[in-house]
């Protein structure tokens, strides 16, 4: 199709211009729930990346067989397959992390980001485009998760990836490790991203 974005465009759009969290506000449940540390955030980002890329590829491969009224079911089943793989893999090799993330790994099945990408891109475009879209969106999602987790972990514990970055006299902002910290950080970073976006569009409009 001529009017569909190319693979490169899909890839680039996923990272910042159409960032899943900051621009589309998709997948906010894991964004809020697992970003109290860099390690869980990175694990979650990796799991979502795996599921998203695989689901996009498979959906793209079977896109000509899809029946319109059954497509959501097929998407969900495809996603559930890869989520189960990711979940079992984590339980086998990263048991502690699997315990920490708890239900949030199985919940990737209902992460609207992935269904959205299957619907918008993979069910309409070629395998290569779908794969690069998956990679781009996964990178964007990871970027968002890690940026929120960085703010929360540094302010909340004075550490980064478990290594102390602030002096030990730093008073831990416990609230940043709790749900209110997630909402505050997400809101403030969303505001910052919007502000940057407005400035950029103003500059490009003016020149």
């Amino acid at each position, binding site marked *: 199709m001529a009017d569909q974005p190319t693979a490169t465009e899909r890839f680039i759009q996923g990272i910042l211009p159409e960032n899943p969290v900051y621009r589309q506000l998709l997948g906010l449940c894991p964004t809020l729930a697992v970003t109290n540390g860099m390690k869980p955030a990175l694990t979650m980002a990796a799991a979502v990346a795996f599921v998203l890329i695989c689901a996009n590829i498979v959906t793209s491969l079977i896109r000509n067989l899809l029946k319109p009224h059954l497509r959501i079911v097929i998407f969900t089943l495809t996603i559930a397959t890869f989520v189960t793989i990711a979940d079992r893999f984590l339980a086998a090799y990263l048991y502690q992390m699997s315990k920490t993330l708890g239900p949030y790994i199985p919940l990737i099945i209902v992460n609207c980001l992935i269904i959205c990408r299957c619907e918008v891109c993979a069910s309409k475009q070629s395998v290569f485009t779908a794969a690069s879209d998956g990679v781009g969106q996964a990178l964007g999602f990871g970027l968002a998760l890690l940026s929120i987790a960085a703010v929360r972990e540094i302010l909340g514990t004075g550490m980064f990836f478990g290594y102390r970055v602030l002096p030990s006299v730093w*008073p*831990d*902002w*416990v*609230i*940043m490790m*709790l749900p*209110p910290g997630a909402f*505050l950080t997400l809101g403030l970073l969303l505001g910052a991203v919007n502000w940057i976006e407005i400035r950029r569009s103003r500059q490009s409009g003016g020149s």
Partner: protein
Amino acid sequence: MINPMTKKPNKNKVEQGTNEEAPAIHVAPSPHISDSVFTTRKMMVDVLIALLPLVFMSIYIFEFYAVKQLVICLASCLGAEALFVKIRHKSFTLTDFSAVVTAIILALSLPGTAPWYVGVIASVVAISIGKIIFGGLGMNIFNPAMVGRAFVMISFASVMGAAAYTDAGAVVDAITQATPMDAFKQTGVTGSISHLFWGLTNGSLGETSAIAALIGGLYLCIRRTASWEIPAGIFTAVFLIAGAADVSGAFSGHLVLHHLFGGALLFGAFFIATDPVTSPLTSKGKFIFGIGTGLFIMLFRLFSGYPEGVMFAVLLMNAVTPLINRWTIPRPLGEV
């Protein structure tokens, strides 16, 4: 504290002067009262006057601990207000004294023993997240001072919790004893009523003296700067629930007085819950707001892990204020 009808024209007037895009003809809902008695600044000065007895008592009881917190909170609140207002490209708002009121209420709600960064962070959060982010004074949903205090209370439980109020080595007598609210929580012993009344106990800086809060609060109510319905509702609820607990536990009247004079109840009822921006508009609504606040205070005091609950009670009732406003819209005369 003030009638919304009278506040609007004044607010518009202020904006008209500063906003370049204001229309040539400004249409505002009646009544078009331009009496300077009702300006934000006058109100805030009234609140500051009413806070004076509390400030004096806190300095008398806690000495330099109180002075330290007041100076820190004033400096940080005013600095934060100037900074964030500049970021939002709004007009200069320091002269309406609302940031000063927020700073003093916040400082008086902190323990004297809290380290310096608690006051600074609480002030910045109060002004930025509590107020400016919603669009400035008049737009905020939650009481700014209590937002700031809740933030540090949850963040730094070790320096804000009940145990942190007590410092056995302190040179100020009051700080060496447990707060009356915490003592009751731990051991079930009510505080000495005369100490609670005059304020010779430990606690947050401004909450200890019942008499100071009463003097300031009555001044506010008589001046109509604070609505009497809100404290009345709070006292009714606290009196009834504490009374029931008193009768059932055979405290022979001590428990009711302990709950009325102890902790931040009077301070909160007169100075925190009566914030005109975050409380309902109609008198019926204000009374409901007061009852709800009182219920939550007693719920927290009697059944939660915290010895005191004024802050959370006020924040919770702030959240339902729009709902109360919708319930209590006055019915115009003649409407069926």
